[in-house]
């Protein structure tokens, strides 16, 4: 009996305590904390292990670069304070800014930078090119080191300041000595923020706090260059598996920033008093349709050309964006519209669907109803919409299409197989490289024509190889542009891929935010949050 009374009293007490706790809990955190929802999830932290965009974007908070790209796509010194190029154009002497320290308080040294560059050169195509041109690197003193080239190479600074996949981030030597294929386990950088590993919950939350040792440049921030002033004390990157929940959280003020708002949710944000949306990057990314050159029927140039004629860029983009044509552009340029090498050369068939022409060309090519396996990831809303239309386009032209509905993980795996379909191979897949990589023929994977050493699809073409090599050696910007135009013309002859529309990065943000920097990379220095 006594026990029962005690039990009842405890139950009642617990309920009352719960109600009291619920009533007194503060609904919002008072703070100078920026809460963001980004596209994708941050699982891998090491920026030299993966080309994942979330990894790269968040790495810019933690690590810094010797040089960086500004808003005009020009390379500017970043960790480097001053630099000199020798008269013979073969020696680059780089002096680090005064007072640069890692987030553990130790000074940044030339040995750290040399080790970091060596690790990066193993992974990155631009880095490998630089490694090929390099004779040696050597430290001069505590803040200065030299890059000595075998021959003059005008793209050295461009390589060091590249912003796309595999950014040459600087790390302490003890970390940078980690083999390039092995993940680093210590995350010490010289960027404006530090990652709080004790709060790292992959797939859920990642927290960054100010790096107390960071010394920003004096110049104003300009994309990835200039003064990276950490204005908010703390950044919480919160993962949302559902975009509707994220938009609701933005409207309720629980998050301040949402990257990648789906087009169907934009009207909800437009109706809000507290939030708004904008296009952060007018280069954005494009949809790239890739054909498997290693297997029939796309080992036949005419069949590839017929496929291009069958595809409708407008229909494909509308499948996801509907009538909201502010969010995409029908762009004929291999190197992106709005970028320096924009051209429409040889793009007539890319821009205009011609089903009858495609049928005729297929007949001329001797297409014999060979199966075409289209990898169709259904777990990504945009890719699902795009490929649904692409499949119908190809069928309308007479291709014998097997619509292989699957998830992105399987697509990533299957596209590595260059064997026949029966052995797990494929015919067509789509991907979405961003403008920041596509705009440069060195980092654009579709320009190489490098056969089995090239990117998935294994496009194989001597002329593309020669033009790519010529671009690397081009002496002037005019010569580079001329080669880029020739590359596009050749790409649309042999179809190493076909772009099917360029779309922009759409961001929803709280109206309390100011100082956001536009561009392809999400940057959160310079950002303030008002009360």
């Amino acid at each position, binding site marked *: 009996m006594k026990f029962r009374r005690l039990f009842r009293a405890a139950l009642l007490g617990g309920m009352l305590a719960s109600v009291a706790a619920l009533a007194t*809990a*503060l609904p919002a955190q008072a703070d100078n904390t920026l809460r963001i929802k980004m596209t994708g999830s941050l*699982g891998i932290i090491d920026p030299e292990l993966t080309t*994942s965009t979330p990894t790269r974007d968040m790495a810019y908070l933690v690590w810094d670069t010797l040089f960086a790209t500004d808003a005009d796509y020009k390379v500017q010194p970043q960790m480097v304070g001053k630099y000199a190029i020798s008269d013979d154009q073969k020696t680059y002497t780089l002096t680090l800014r005064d007072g640069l320290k890692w987030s553990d308080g130790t000074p940044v040294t030339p040995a750290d930078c040399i080790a970091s560059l060596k690790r990066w050169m193993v992974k990155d195509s631009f880095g490998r090119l630089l490694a090929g041109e390099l004779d040696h690197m050597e430290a001069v003193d505590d803040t200065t080191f030299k890059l000595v080239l075998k021959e003059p190479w005008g793209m050295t600074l461009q390589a060091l300041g590249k912003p796309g996949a595999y950014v040459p981030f600087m790390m302490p030597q003890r970390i940078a000595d980690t083999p390039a294929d092995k993940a680093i386990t210590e995350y010490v950088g010289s960027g404006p923020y530090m990652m709080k590993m004790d709060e790292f919950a*992959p797939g859920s939350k990642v927290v960054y706090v100010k790096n107390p040792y960071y010394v920003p440049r004096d110049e104003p921030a300009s994309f990835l260059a200039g003064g990276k002033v950490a204005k908010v004390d703390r950044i919480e990157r919160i*993962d949302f598996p559902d975009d509707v929940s994220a938009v609701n959280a933005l409207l*309720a003020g629980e998050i301040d920033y949402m990257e990648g708002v789906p087009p169907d949710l934009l009207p909800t944000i437009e109706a809000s008093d507290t939030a708004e949306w904008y296009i952060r990057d007018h280069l954005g990314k494009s949809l790239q349709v890739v054909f498997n050159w290693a297997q029939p029927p796309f080992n036949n140039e005419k069949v590839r050309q017929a496929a291009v004629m069958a595809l409708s860029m407008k229909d494909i983009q509308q499948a996801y964006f509907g009538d909201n044509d502010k969010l995409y552009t029908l762009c004929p340029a291999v190197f992106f519209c709005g970028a320096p090498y924009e051209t429409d050369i040889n793009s007539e068939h890319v821009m205009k669907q011609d089903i009858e022409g495609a049928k005729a060309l297929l007949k001329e090519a001797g297409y014999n109803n060979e199966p075409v396996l289209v990898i169709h990831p259904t777990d990504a809303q945009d890719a699902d919409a795009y490929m649904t239309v692409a499949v119908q386009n190809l069928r309308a032209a007479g291709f014998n299409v097997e619509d292989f509905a699957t998830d992105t993980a399987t697509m990533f795996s299957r596209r*590595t197989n260059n064997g026949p379909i029966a052995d797990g191979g494929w015919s067509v897949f789509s991907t979405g490289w961003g403008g920041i990589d596509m705009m440069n023929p060195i980092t654009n994977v579709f320009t190489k024509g490098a056969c089995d050493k090239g990117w998935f699809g294994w496009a194989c073409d001597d002329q593309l190889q020669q033009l790519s090599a010529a671009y690397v050696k081009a002496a002037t910007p005019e010569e580079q542009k001329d080669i880029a135009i020739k590359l596009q013309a050749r790409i649309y002859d042999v179809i190493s891929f076909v772009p099917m529309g360029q779309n922009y990065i759409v961001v929803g943000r709280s109206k309390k935010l100011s100082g956001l920097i536009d561009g392809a990379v999400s940057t959160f220095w310079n950002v303030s949050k008002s009360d």
Partner: protein
Amino acid sequence: MLRYVGLRLLSTIPVLAFVLLLAFFLLHLAPGDPAALIAGDSATPAQVEAIRAQLHLNEPLSTQLWIWLIDLAHFDLGRSVFSNLPVTQLIAQRFEPTLMLAISTTILAVLLAVPLGVIAAYRARTGIDRGVIVLAVAGYSVPVFVIGYCLIFVFAVQLHWLPVQGYKPLAEGLGGTLRSLVLPTVALALLYVGLIARVTRATMLEVLDEDYIRTARAKGALTLRVLCIHALKNAGPPIVTVIGIGFASLIGGVVVTETVFNIPGLGRLTAEAVLRRDYPLVQGMLLTFAVMLVAINLVVDLTYPLFDPRIRY
């Protein structure tokens, strides 16, 4: 009792072994390649291959299984191939939200469902009974995400009473935890109210026809006492079994609810791990679920003698 517990625990070993082996082979035979996912969309085939070699994914399946079993024998579930964090740490991070949600949902569901089931049985074949059945069927039939989005719209977006999303850990204060649990608990509990209320009603109907109930009434016992003490106690085992199964399902992760309310629980962790082909993490999760399921079933079995003294172990 101890002998029974010992035997039950021993009998779980082959079950766990079977579950683990099946999970290991099914997972590795499924299409997908973690190396390709780690390398990222922009990696070259050579870079993917290098990562595959680094992760020993080119080794025969039997070798990979052997390595995993050796680690397991040392109580090491390995590391996530993505985050490189220990699997145990990742599971521990997600355990609290799931456990708290399971507890709050179970408490709310039991507090609502058992009285409803008892009343429905007591008023069998009346309007009240039919009302409870309709409520139960509706709770069971309406998808959780529909209820969830409606609750969020009204109580979080419009009224700003409760948060839209997320989970506040207990370490940051009980109030925050409870606030973050209210909406997902209500959404999930409606489902379990339907289930538990129906089982309670059905069991109570059987018990209420028993002779000892008639005897109790003939002795002049109050209706409340007859229902709660004489009938409900005897109807306990099936109800507790359903509650136990429900609790085990909740612990196993409720992916949709966790997704709608952005709760970083075990369900989402499992779904993410499967989609990323994070083999060590999926295997660790399955082992955890299997052990918890066994433990919950054992606890449920051990409660039977509390309701029915004839049951002895």
